[in-house]
């Protein structure tokens, strides 16, 4: 079951929601669409489902062009961010609805719904209305309806975003297990980089209607092809700044410079962009690759186990993320240490140059 988008474009009126995009989805593991709100995740899913027609381009499914096939005939299932269930149907009828529309025999419907309900721990609630369920149970019902159909393509559009923290973790663990060995293509949209990393599989980073990179999740995270992909796949936001290469050193300003690593030696002198993930800038001097940068503390966010500090250097805001509690006073001068071994360098066109 392979789903492929070929040069697909989606417009709505004068606006372009999806710029020319080609994407061949994977059958093993999740296909994650990672991007902020309005980056085009939902638009892409609507195209895959057949809810919207592309303005140009084709959608191929299992070697067949399905661009003009209506959604009802495509054997897809979808779960939305909001808990969408049919309010006038019981949980059982909700889960059974795709099977009923397909006119399956009553006994088979009952068996399959029972099986899926068991899997999602909904068996005791089958007679209730969706409005009588908790948010987590409502979303389980929606997931059950997506599962029971045995669809070829399962589209999950930020299914966990509206759940509270505990339920989200719980369902996130269950999801990959639920869809394993079902032989379906699973597409999962999320705006959280952490969620993408936890789910694994393959990730496509999306920015303003364009897919900037598609590949194994860990690889996209570690080796972004350009600055935008790196920025999309970073939370808190990635630090980026202009640097100049002079000889074997990168110069940020007259106080901060560092020796270029092994793989950057060959770069010619000139202007580049350096990107550093927040957790590679820490308040602790960690040795060999560390280079000090001083700045004025703007904001500190302390959670139980980590500290996020925003500080200012020459009018530019930098973010440091570190384990443990590091108390800073807003307005103070403080020293941070960049792990230069983890810096990523990009050319002036934002293309990645060397690790």
């Amino acid at each position, binding site marked *: 079951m392979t789903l492929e988008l070929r040069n697909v474009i989606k417009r709505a009126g004068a606006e372009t929601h999806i710029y020319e995009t080609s994407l061949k989805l994977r059958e093993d593991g999740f296909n994650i669409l990672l991007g902020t709100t309005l980056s085009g995740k939902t638009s892409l899913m609507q195209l895959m489902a057949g809810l919207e027609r592309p303005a140009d381009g084709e959608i191929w499914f299992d070697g067949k062009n399905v661009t003009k096939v209506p*959604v009802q005939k495509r054997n897809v299932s979808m779960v*939305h961010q909001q808990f969408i269930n*049919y309010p*006038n*149907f019981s949980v059982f009828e909700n889960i059974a609805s795709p099977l009923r529309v397909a006119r399956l025999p009553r006994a088979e419907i009952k068996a399959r719904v029972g099986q899926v309900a068991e899997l999602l721990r909904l068996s005791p609630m089958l007679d209730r209305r969706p409005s009588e369920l908790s948010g987590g149970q409502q979303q389980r019902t929606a997931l059950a309806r997506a599962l029971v159909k045995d669809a070829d393509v399962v589209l999950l559009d930020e299914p966990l975003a509206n759940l509270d923290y505990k339920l989200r973790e719980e369902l996130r663990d269950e999801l990959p297990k639920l869809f394993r060995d079902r032989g379906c293509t699973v597409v999962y949209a999320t705006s959280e980089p952490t969620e993408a990393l936890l789910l694994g599989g393959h990730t496509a980073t999306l920015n303003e209607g364009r897919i900037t990179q598609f590949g194994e999740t860990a690889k996209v995270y570690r080796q972004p092809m350009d600055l935008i992909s790196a920025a999309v796949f970073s939370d808190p936001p990635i630090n980026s700044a202009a640097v100049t290469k002079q000889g074997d050193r990168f110069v940020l300003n007259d106080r901060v410079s560092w020796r270029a690593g092994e793989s950057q030696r060959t770069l010619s002198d000139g202007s580049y962009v350096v990107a550093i993930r927040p957790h590679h800038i820490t308040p602790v001097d960690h040795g060999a690759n560390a280079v000090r940068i001083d700045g004025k503390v703007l904001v500190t966010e302390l959670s139980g186990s980590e500290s996020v500090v925003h500080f200012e250097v020459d009018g530019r805001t930098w973010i440091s993320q570190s384990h443990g509690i590091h108390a800073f006073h807003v307005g103070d001068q403080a020293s941070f240490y960049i792990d230069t071994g983890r810096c990523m360098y990009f050319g002036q066109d934002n293309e990645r140059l060397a690790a």
Partner: protein
Amino acid sequence: MRKATWLAPTLYILFLMLPIYWLVIMSFKTTNEILSVFTLWPQDFTLENYEKIFTDSTWYNGYFNSLAYVLMNTVIAVTAALPAAYAFSRYRFLGDKHLFFWLLTNRMAPPAVFALPFFQLYSAVNLFDTHIAVALAHTLFNIPLAVWILEGFMSGVPKELDETAYVDGYPFWRFFLRIFMPTIAAGIGVAAFFCFMFSWVELLLAKTLTSVAAKPIAATMTRTASTSGYELGLLAAAGTLTIIPGAFVIYFVRNYIAKGFALGRV
């Protein structure tokens, strides 16, 4: 200050109920008593007024006629408004917002404006003095109202519900009838209620477009002058009976109407 909190609602209800109370007790009085003395309670309690209405066909037929065209109108208006409201709520098309507003402007003209053209038109196509004539005339006001109300309720239903149903394999009409309409049942109830009320209360068009066969109760009531003068007791009884259907319908949709108000559409 705290002690007086009961005062305002009590006065409010008192003033609200007073005319209705007066109407109801009048209906149990004889016309003589109404005209001669001031009494808070009928001295000479009588059911004669009601008896007359329930036995005289010119009276009770008025109710049947009114109910007939009101129900026809409600069914036509809601049936036509449902797909229209769905289009306004779910699709964007050229001039959609203008059209939506223009629909409402139909309500801004007084019914009297349309009395003459309707009379001419219905006479020409032999619909004069039929129930359907009045029902159709009232849809001019009720369809826009129903579209306006239903659109509010429909827009409160996430578009993702439609998408989920299509993904599940529902063809449009099956989704609309089996899932969407039950979901907005409250809105349909409220829209039907307002259509019912408008049509039930509207007198001018109903009177203009009918003579004998489809004469509405309100028209009958305005023609009660007899040789012995106005029969006030009889009129009061007819008035009381006219309030009942409205009160009955409002009882069933009272909770939904609150929802309609919350949506700002009623």
